[in-house]
């Protein structure tokens, strides 16, 4: 497997890449988002699977993002995502609104290698009216004709980016029930994963671990980032740091406050850790 360090992992992401990331109730790699900010990434196109949270807001605030495709952007209990909202209002990002199952379905089409998949619902929503890439056809199997249904194109991100609990010596990663990360990995051209730790062995030989595992087939590089999901929770290992998120929500209300937050939490903390 390709075990590297966090900054090298970020260096693998060219400007303009399409990145799929899970939201704050799953396992986003906040550590890699911060490393992308430090590397000065530009023009990233983020896909929230199926919604977006803290990592998206800091990447947007830092000017790394050109486009966001997702079903919602939020800091959960801490409220609306401040830098995303500001960038949207200022016209600095392109927003492609979706609805949760549509994001899953577009990725599932990529998993299967088919050009599109149908999905029920959505007809009558303004989401559909603003998605020229989504089509409506009559169900070809409807015996009586009619029965309009939405077709969604396959969505293949350049990179799947998420955090996992651990990797084994073969490059398989384990993240338990957060299977949306498996959908992300299967659908993306490559996946970059941060983990808490690397352990000896092969998870795929263990029946209790294998179902919560993503095979090394899908994973291009791994970096160890302890507490790499923080301030987001990691399964049953650490809780969400709600104080950190509230603090962020307060500071990031203004561009100046956000820059101050970045200096302390993204640039300075790294410098301190390197000493």
């Amino acid at each position, binding site marked *: 497997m390709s075990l590297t360090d966090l900054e090298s992992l970020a260096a693998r992401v060219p400007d303009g890449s399409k990145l799929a990331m899970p939201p704050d109730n799953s396992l986003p790699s906040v550590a890699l988002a911060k490393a992308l900010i430090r590397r000065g990434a530009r023009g990233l196109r983020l896909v929230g699977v199926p919604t977006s949270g803290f990592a998206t807001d800091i990447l947007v605030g830092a000017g790394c993002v050109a486009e966001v495709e997702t079903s919602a952007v939020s800091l959960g209990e801490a409220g609306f995502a401040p830098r995303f909202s500001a960038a949207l209002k200022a016209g600095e990002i392109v927003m492609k609104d979706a609805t949760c199952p549509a994001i899953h379905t577009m990725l599932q089409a990529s998993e299967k290698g088919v050009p599109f998949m149908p999905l029920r619902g*959505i007809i*009558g929503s303004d989401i559909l009216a603003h998605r020229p890439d989504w089509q409506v056809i009559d169900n070809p199997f409807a015996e009586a004709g009619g029965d309009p249904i939405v077709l969604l194109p396959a969505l293949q991100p350049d990179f799947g980016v998420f955090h996992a609990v651990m990797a084994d010596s073969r490059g398989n990663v384990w993240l338990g029930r957060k299977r949306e990360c498996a959908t992300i990995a299967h659908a993306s051209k490559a996946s970059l994963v941060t983990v808490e730790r690397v352990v000896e062995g092969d998870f795929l030989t263990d029946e209790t671990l294998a179902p919560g595992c993503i095979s090394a087939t899908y994973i291009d590089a791994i970096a160890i980032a302890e507490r790499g999901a923080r301030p987001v929770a990691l399964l049953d290992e650490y809780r969400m740091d709600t104080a950190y998120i509230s603090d962020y929500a307060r500071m990031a209300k203004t561009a100046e406050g956000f820059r101050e937050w970045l200096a302390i939490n993204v640039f300075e903390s790294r410098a301190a850790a390197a000493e």
Partner: protein
Amino acid sequence: MSDCKPEEFLAATICRLILDPSQPTARHVAVGAASPVPAAACYLAQKLGYPIRLSLLARTQGNPFSDGTRELFDLTGQGRIDLFFLGGGQIDGEANLNLVGTGEWPGKGVRFPGSFGSAFMYMMTPRIILFREEHSPRVLVSKVDNISANGVSPPGVFRRGHAQALVTGRCVFRFHPDRARFSLASVHAGETVESVRAATGFDFDVDGSIPTTPPPTTEELALLRGPVCDEMLETYPDFCARVFSRSDDQSAPLPHEASLRGDPEGGRGGLNQPALT
């Protein structure tokens, strides 16, 4: 009614709508992430003895889904979720929901978080209960600025159900998909038809005399404050602290927290310790 908090009152009100005998039975109910009042209503129905399978998306320990977040939508697509809850930054008189934002698409006025799964769930779930505590002309509007999820569909479009009701901090509305209008079902204590009308941006029907929404019974309040709170403590600690004055011990170690401290006995250490207990 003894002193009861608005959240308790609303949970008991929603519980009665869940158990409404005129509706198809709710066997499996799902509750979205930021919905502690609907969650309390569902747990109350369970504690009253109704066999409801409750899938709480916000649960961390013991979350019902093991196949990722798409599982809820796959279940719903098959018709295996009977009842779901939705709200909206704006809700209009045809039960259209706006979760995107005000002004021009995609929310050039005030951007809300986004539509989440509403555009799918609203059409694919047989029963939907709309809940929005704020009842004001800015929320209940004559026409939403943007439609995340539409209240009714043209003939021929596959749809399993519609809004059953809209519960607010002032009243309960019933929705009539045949005429795409709400009617007033009951007003909460202290409200009148006139006060509700003054606070509502859309027109609605008033048929006959409108009853007052009944308060929770003594039994319901005891269940809410006891066993319902017990169930909700881990998932909604802030809500339980505010409404039931009970706090969860968030400083207690999680099952596998020890592994982060390099404790070889305590952690999910890998193959020699597949500690998935």
